[in-house]
């Protein structure tokens, strides 16, 4: 396995939203989940993750709540707001259109 690809600008947001759409999750969990689900293909840059989370929170797409994690340690759990859910659907559609487009171009030759 080569070096994990850096995420394309803007896709991190999509991944975070998609990840927290399933259940409330803390930052570590989000990073872990993305890595696992992508089968180690996508590596979330930790330095980018938290600013992105804070920005999404400030924009009202996700909300945060403190809760207990394993070993009774407190962690900040993020979950989607209704507005965030709508935003995610929209972004997902956009992404699909985009990747289909790119795929078509690549298959051309």
């Amino acid at each position, binding site marked *: 396995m080569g070096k994990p690809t850096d995420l394309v600008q803007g896709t991190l947001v999509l991944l975070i939203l998609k990840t927290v759409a399933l259940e409330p999750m803390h*930052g*570590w969990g989000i990073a872990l989940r993305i890595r696992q689900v992508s089968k180690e293909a996508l590596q979330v840059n930790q*330095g980018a993750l*938290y*600013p992105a989370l*804070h920005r999404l929170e*400030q924009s*009202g797409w996700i909300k945060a709540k403190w809760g207990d994690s394993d070993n009774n340690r*407190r962690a900040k759990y993020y979950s989607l707001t209704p*507005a965030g859910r709508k935003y995610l659907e929209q972004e997902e559609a956009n992404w699909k259109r985009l990747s289909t487009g790119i795929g078509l171009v690549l298959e051309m030759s």
Partner: protein
Amino acid sequence: MMRWLYKLPLRFRTLFRKSHVEQELSDELRFHLEKLIEENLAKGMGPEEARYAALRDLGGFEQIKEECRDMRRVNYIENFLQDVSYGLRVLAKKPGFTFVAVLSLALGIGANTALFSLVDAVLLKTLPVQRPDELVLLDESGGPGTVQYFPYPVFQQMSTESRVITGMLASFDADGTLRVSVRISGGGTTAELAQAQLVSGNYYSVLGVNAILGRTITPEDDKVPGGHPVAVISHAYWESRFEHDPSVVGKTITVNGHPFTIIGVTPQEFFGITPGHPPDVTIPLMMQAQVWLAPGQAIVNDQRFGWLRLMARLKPGVAENLARAALTTRLQQFEIRSAGSVLSAEDRHAFLQHAVQFASASKGLDSLRRQFSKPLLILITIVGLVLLIACANVAILLLARAIERQREFAVRLALGAGRLRLIRQLLTESVLLSSTGGALGCLLAYWARNVLLSLISRSPLPISLHAPLDSRILSFSIGLSLFTGLLFGLAPALQSTRAEIAPAVVGGSVSRESTGRRFWSSLAQLLVSFQFALSLVLLVGAGLFLRSLSKLNRLDAGFSRDNLLLVSVDPTMVGYKGTQVLDFYDEVLNRVASLPGVHSAALSSHSLLSGGVDDAGFAVAGYTPRPGDARGVNLNLVSPGFFRLMGIRILLGREFELRDNRNAPPVAVISEAVAQQYFGSENPVGKTFGWGGPSENTRVEIIGVARNVKWDSLRNEGARIVYLPFQQNPPWHDPLGQVTFEVRTERTALSMVAPVRQQFQSIDKSIPVFDIKTQNEQTEESLIQEHLLAALSAGFGVLALALAIVGLYGTLSNDVIRRTHEIGTRIALGARSANVVWSVLAQVLRLVLIGVAVGLLGTWSISRLVDSLLFGLTPTDPGTIGVATLLLAVTAILAGYVPARRASKVDAAVALRHE
């Protein structure tokens, strides 16, 4: 979108629970770190190694935190608070600079705020009534002149035109001339004067003003002549005469000898319908005969006698010309009907030319606006210029500061501070300066406004203005402060943040020249020249007004003004009638004349330069008016000996004597101007005239011609006056009521005030004495505009000069520091200190010259504004301009001498090592 539901609380948390939010951020990241360490441990690393790897993996802990903070987007508020506290520290470190800057601004902003409060009260503010925009004032055009005063029946006829108006009110006398004697029951027996107003019953309902205590006058209070002895008092009167007594409603006051019951108090902000002339007591129109004119002389049913100002509230949605047409129809119908059967076709045609005109009444009657709009316009220009000078001053000081602080900024720029951030920092500092100046300015304004009000109130008809420093005024000065702060702060801010990092940081020397520095230094000098130009304009203006005033004061008024005391009384106010009045006058004249210290005493129905008018017709057989001839004359009823006492020369014939009493044939003395117009070169003595009008056939014999005197204003030449003996008051004329006694004293007039007043008291205590003043005071009052302008323009001229001098001083000092190296070199090369002094002074002269050149253009451009207010000189009077220029130059050179001396004391060795 409900996103704000989530966003808003977050913003608040970030701002107000900062430590909490910071703690959470740390916790969150630490949690992540621990998880990383756990993972590393699970991979089999040792504890130390696991921790180290985790930290490295995460990247800069603090950097992530900072980025998260940025995401919170409230930084600008925090930055602002930081800027403010840093700015305060910087300003506190330089108290001298801060003091001068804040003081300059405080003076500028204070003067502007004070004047604006006056402009607001006189020119801008609408009446404190409901929907003032719907109100119009009625005039009648189409006759010989515009008629502003209407008879009561006309009012009745028009006020019912409910298709176009929602109401019409009538009032007398909103211009502040109806003064009445008021005695408060239980408040002693001495009568006092109060400002009265007679109003129609619907006055308050049309305006939409309610009483704050009791009730206002209603139509029910205005039905039967003489039948409604009720009065509404103003808040100010309630305060000053009744000390806010809550039980004032129901009390009785005696107005001109008739008891009235107080029924209510109007709100504090309500000043009637004429700015500057608030009524103390308001009474229904039907009570006219009780308070105005002689008792029993009811004029409410007179169809000809115009005395009421009418104000209508237009119906919303009705076009103005429609309303005007409807009211015009009513007016014409009334006039034609009241003329009855004697109406000729010509008269009928003339009546049909009459039309109602509207003037906006949203700001009330305009007597005060007419009187003061021009002086106020000039004054607001003056204080505006002063503020500009103050701003230039602060800009100069800031530029100097900026040069001093260049190293600080270079270092901050080098360390990665954003330029915008630095500019914002500097602007914050200048806005801090200006808002501190503004706050101080508001305090100053409070004081200055009182001075202004007391200056203005000294006009012939007392003016009392309601000019509170309210939210309008405060927002004006806050806006002004912010605006000035940005205005003068921008250039220095741009200058000091220019990215010239390397030389400033590396060189470290203040004496090293850079092209940028020289540019900004010349900008400062440009500002100084600009200040000189503005100062010159103000000084010239002040000189012009001062010289006009002094010319007016030295003018020969045609009578002798010194040692002359004027006392006005009106015995008819307390019920004196017919011969009783004349006997009272005689007794006063006898008693006062025999007082020790009094030379002689006389009386007249109008005192000279009091501003009053009393028009009369004047008909001479065989006289045909030439085009351009003025019509009518002024009437003055005087006592025997009046001319001798006043020092008015009798050119032909004789003056009145005791024998010209009420039983003697009617006689008159005419002024030169009347003689000139009606008799040309003929001798008028012995000739007769009549009063005009169809039923008048009295013949009055002219027994003398008096020299022309100034009558209503010192500016007007050749007043046409006909003097009559007061015992021979013509039957068509108002009965003699208020008169003025002229008392010629042996020493200063003011020393006789108490003994003269005492004589009145000893004859009848209940007669109120209107006014005691010297003729000189009265003359000054007639020059109120000129006084106001002269005093204020001189004050502001000096202030402007002082500010400009501070600016010059700041620039030069800074320039000398900048050139220390150069000056040192020159001294080392053998320049003498005189040469150095001269080189600095030459620079001052250059600045003055530029300033004067620009300033002269400025004076020329505003000359049209001031021309009509000058007397005896033109706006480009060379003497005044010369003196102003000289004053400017001399002051500038004196101020420049101090830095010049300092420059000449530069130690060559020190200056060169300075490098």
